[in-house]
């Protein structure tokens, strides 16, 4: 059967609804990330947040990036983070204060920042088109390997360096403390 | 090879540097060798400077023995040195006092002799360089080079409170000189902007001609002059900027004080005559009244404060303020006799105050104390020393027949032509000088021998031959220049008229808050 091109009752186009849902989820989970007491929950919330973000990417017409997002973040980084959490877990940690003493000023600053950004965005004419342009994977690939080949290579170097250094720092060689 | 081709001035300037390097490679424990080497190089430089003096042609007002080498062509910065009468005289003064000071350091300096001699020789390089540099950039470099060795000399071999004194000295001088650097650059740039070329932008002679013909725009003049003024006024030191001097003098080792009083203070006056006035005549005219007032204050104020100094060296330090007040006064009345008097006064103050500090050092060697109150009746115990000291005291008090008088009188004469009341105030220093100097002499030398001195017993010996050797040349020069000031006046005639032609008849810049 044919899906109506607008959601019944509220009469909004589907992707708008999706957008709303996804953004609400994202923002919500993001807020959880920065507020939850138990840091493990924070990690999980972050996964949710990134998931929603991936959804938005799809919505915006960048499925490949969305896929990468899921792989890299939800797959790699979050797991990494969770491991780190395990490694650095102190018994007392959750009991301790979540927030810095300067939480309030921080909040104010963040709020002002958000408002500033919002206002500028609205005040600026980005001469944008009205509909998102879909990028086909093939085109992206060609761009990536022609116009962006150098960055692409460099990133690999970057990762290499990060890994080498990371290993050196993280590896525990038993020396008399 | 032709005599004229010998880079005489460079030799004079850098022979001490060679000496410093040589000394640096001498074994630390061979003290005698180190002393001898340092002295020899100082003497060589001295001898060369005498050649300069002989070879100098007073009738030719231009800079002689010029040497020019491109250094930083991009900005037209050159290694350019040369000497006119003023430079020559001051160079000779420097070389003379350098070897005298080194000789005078033989006995007092036992600690870190090597570093001491190195610093001293480098100091000499800087001082000579300042007097012969004809490129503003080069001038500035030598100017700053002077700072470091002096900093070390006071800071390492100085008295109990030496670190405070030396840091004060350096910071104070730096504030002025760095602003001067900005001024120098601004001047050069203004020239470049006007002529469209960097060539000669730092060359003093070119700039002077530029100033004489086109002239710098007034606000550049005002800024640059003020910056130069601050730098030089601190060095001289003029009235409100003088407080570093007593500290530095009191803490410095004898030879340090000698160089400080005899040469370093002259850098400021030299700067005024050579650079500040000719380059920015209008600004100079503008601020002349202010500077004259400051000089007068310095003359009277310094003398009065000197009256009540409890410390031997401090007293002489304040007397320097007075005497240098005469110099600045003589310069800024822009009048022939005044300027000649100022220059003469520079030389004389160098010889006389240098001598006084040497003498004080001689006694300090024996007593290790400079508190006037603890002295008394010295004349009975060390008659020769007393006589010699008295000689310098009266020279300093401007006794006619000795060199001090002519300079002061010429300045007075110029001042009188400028404004009788100025002269009157300045002349009052004849009384002041007599007062504080004789008061000091009376407290230290007359009366019964003080208990403190009696306590020293046989340590309190009269002046020794080697010490006398350091004093006699100065005394001789004081007498000679007193009877034949023409020796100097003829030398500097060219400089004087050159400077005055720059500045006379220039109308001051009109400031809304001034005049």
């Amino acid at each position: 059967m044919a899906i109506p091109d607008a959601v019944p009752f509220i009469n909004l186009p589907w992707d708008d609804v999706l957008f709303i849902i996804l953004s609400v989820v994202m923002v919500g989970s993001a807020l959880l990330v920065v507020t939850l007491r138990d840091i493990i929950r924070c990690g999980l919330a972050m996964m949710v947040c990134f998931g929603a973000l991936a959804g938005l990417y799809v919505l915006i017409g960048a499925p490949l990036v969305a896929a990468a997002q899921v792989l890299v973040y939800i797959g790699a980084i979050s797991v990494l983070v969770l491991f780190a959490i395990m490694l650095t877990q102190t018994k007392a940690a959750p009991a301790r204060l979540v927030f810095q003493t300067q939480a309030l000023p921080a909040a104010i600053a963040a709020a002002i920042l958000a408002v500033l950004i919002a206002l500028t965005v609205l005040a600026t004419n980005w001469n944008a088109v009205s509909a998102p342009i879909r990028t086909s994977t093939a085109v992206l690939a060609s761009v990536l390997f022609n116009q962006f080949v150098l960055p692409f290579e460099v990133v690999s170097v970057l990762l290499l360096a990060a890994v080498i250094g990371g290993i050196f720092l993280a590896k525990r060689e038993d020396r008399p403390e | 090879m032709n005599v004229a081709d010998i880079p005489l001035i460079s030799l004079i300037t850098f022979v001490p540097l060679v000496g410093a390097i040589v000394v640096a490679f001498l074994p630390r424990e061979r003290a005698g060798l180190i002393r001898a080497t340092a002295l020899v190089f100082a003497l060589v430089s001295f001898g060369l400077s005498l050649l300069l003096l002989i070879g100098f042609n007073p009738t030719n007002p231009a800079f002689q023995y010029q040497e020019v080498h491109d250094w930083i062509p991009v900005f037209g910065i050159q290694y350019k040195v040369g000497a006119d009468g003023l430079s020559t005289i001051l160079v000779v003064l420097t070389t003379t006092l350098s070897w005298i000071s080194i000789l005078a350091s033989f006995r007092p300096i036992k600690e870190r002799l090597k570093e001491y001699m190195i610093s001293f020789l480098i100091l000499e390089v800087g001082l000579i360089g300042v007097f012969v540099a004809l490129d503003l950039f080069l001038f500035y470099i030598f100017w700053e080079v002077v700072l470091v060795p002096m900093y070390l000399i006071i800071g390492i071999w100085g008295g109990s409170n030496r670190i405070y004194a030396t840091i004060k000295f350096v910071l104070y001088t730096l504030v002025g000189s760095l602003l001067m650097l900005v001024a120098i650059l601004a001047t050069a740039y203004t020239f470049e902007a006007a002529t469209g070329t960097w060539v000669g932008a730092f060359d003093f002679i070119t700039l002077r001609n530029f100033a004489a013909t086109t002239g710098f725009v007034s606000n550049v003049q005002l800024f640059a002059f003020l910056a130069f003024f601050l730098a030089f006024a601190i060095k001289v030191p003029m009235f409100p900027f003088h407080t570093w001097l007593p500290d530095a003098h009191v803490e410095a080792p004898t030879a340090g004080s000698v160089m400080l009083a005899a040469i370093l203070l002259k850098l400021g006056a030299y700067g005024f005559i050579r650079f500040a006035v000719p380059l920015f005549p209008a600004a100079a005219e503008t601020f002349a009244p202010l500077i004259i007032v400051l000089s007068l204050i310095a003359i009277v104020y310094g003398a009065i404060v000197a009256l009540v100094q409890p410390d031997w060296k401090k007293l002489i330090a304040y007397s320097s303020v007075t005497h240098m007040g005469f110099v600045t006064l003589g310069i800024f009345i822009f009048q022939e006799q005044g300027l000649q008097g100022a220059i003469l006064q520079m030389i004389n103050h160098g010889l006389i105050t240098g001598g006084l500090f040497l003498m004080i050092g001689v006694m300090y060697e024996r007593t290790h104390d400079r508190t006037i109150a603890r002295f008394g009746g010295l004349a009975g115990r060390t008659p020769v020393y007393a006589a010699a000291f008295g000689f310098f005291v009266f020279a300093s008090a401007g006794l006619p027949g000795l060199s001090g008088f002519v300079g002061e009188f010429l300045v007075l004469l110029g001042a009188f032509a400028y404004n009788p009341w100025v002269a009157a105030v300045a002349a009052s220093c004849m009384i002041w000088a007599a007062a504080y100097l004789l008061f000091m002499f009376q407290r230290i030398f007359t009366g019964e021998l003080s208990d403190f001195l009696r306590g020293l017993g046989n340590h309190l010996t009269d002046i020794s031959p080697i010490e006398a050797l350091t004093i006699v040349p100065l005394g001789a020069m004081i007498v000679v220049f007193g009877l034949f000031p023409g020796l100097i006046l003829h030398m500097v005639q060219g400089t004087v008229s050159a400077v005055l032609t720059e500045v006379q008849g220039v109308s001051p810049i009109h400031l809304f808050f001034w005049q």
Partner: protein
Amino acid sequence: MSWADLSTIAPFAAAIVVAGLVIVTDIIVPGRRAPALAVALGGLAVVAVLAILVGRTPTTAFDGAYRVDDLTTYLDVLFVAVVAVTLMVAPDYLTSRDLPVPEFAAVLLFALSGVMLISASGDLLVLFLGLELMVLPGYLLAGFAKHDALSTEGAIKYFLLGSFSSAIFLFGLALIWGMTGTTRIEGVSTALAAIVAGSAPLTPGLAMGLAFLTTGVAFKIAAVPFHYWTPDAYQGSPTPVTGYLSIVPKVGAFALILRLFVEALGPLSADWNVVIIVLAALTMTLGNLVALSQDSVKRMLAYSSIAHTGYMLIGLAAWSSSKSQIQGLEGLLYYGAAYAAMNLGAFAVVAALQRRTGISSQLETFAGLGRREPLLAILMTLFLLSLTGIPPTAGFFAKAYVILAAVEAGGPAGILAVIAVLNAAAAAFYYLRVVVYMFMREPKGEPAPVVIGRLMRTGLIVSAVLTVVLGVLPELLLPVVERAAKAVIQ
């Protein structure tokens, strides 16, 4: 990707290869530092040669993403030199704290490749990557003494704040892309030129982009008020690393500024110039003031490096006329070299003193050095005088150069010049304080004797010679600097 491209990026590639080789040598002959060092230093020589060869003719590769011009060459050679000296100074220090030299060298080389990328990038994304490639190893180096609490503390502070600023910077980049619709530097500048030329007012988005970018770079060059990380990171890091950190990432960030602000955002210079002037004034003043009251020489030098950032910024502040612009950039670049020589030297001396573990960098450590180690003391004095700006040293001429530019620019920049010299005078106090300790104070107790290895000695001598030569014969460097500056401003 063509062979031409490859030959163009040869120096950059070489740096990475050398890094790899170092690791390989370490795997082949484990636990010995000499081979790895030999490879590293030799490799650096190769890199330098390549850089010079490639740099003879300005070329671009990867259709403009990578661009080699005189600026690139100048900076590359400078960076290679600094890294080389660091490699000479570090080993004694590291081995005495049994930290592995090969890893150190490798990470350092990666960082080098990053900064080389910055100096050669013609594309904003490459620029960003170069930045990251420069700083990430930096974080690692800061925490290289991983068993030392201070080192790791400095590292994490550096890292957290660093990535925070990177995020900000990236956001700024994004906004600029949004505005101009391209990542290529020329593209950006032409687009902006069009916008500026157009009657329409600049959009707020652009302003915000500028703000974020400025904040980002201000952080990287440690300009006040974004400098907080500097003292802690510098103090915590192993001393040789501090020497490196105080120079390469800073000068690298300045290279970034040249590429990004001067080239890409050139059309907006009128806007960012004002901010730069304010930053410069704040930076040098605060840096000097706080340095006055430091007792740890390392930390003091950290603050002094902040102050020097301020002096270098003067070069960018002198923007009123095209002539003063060139002058300013030349000054900035010259300052970079001079600063590298003298600062590296100063830290090298500290490192030499701290060769044995457990020796603090407190002033007390320097007491009586003049007697114990005349050579070290004299060298230190030389470096400190140069940092103060006393002629005839590199520091003096560099300062004079930027001040000249400021004077030429006149106006607020002129005032900046005066502020600068007053600062310099104040700075003399804390630099000379060290001299006071070295020559005019006697040590408490019996200080440990100092041993200087051959490499270390070479490093010291090299920086000393450079410090003097750059002061006495600036003519050697001036043409190079001029060409480099001209490369940025046509």
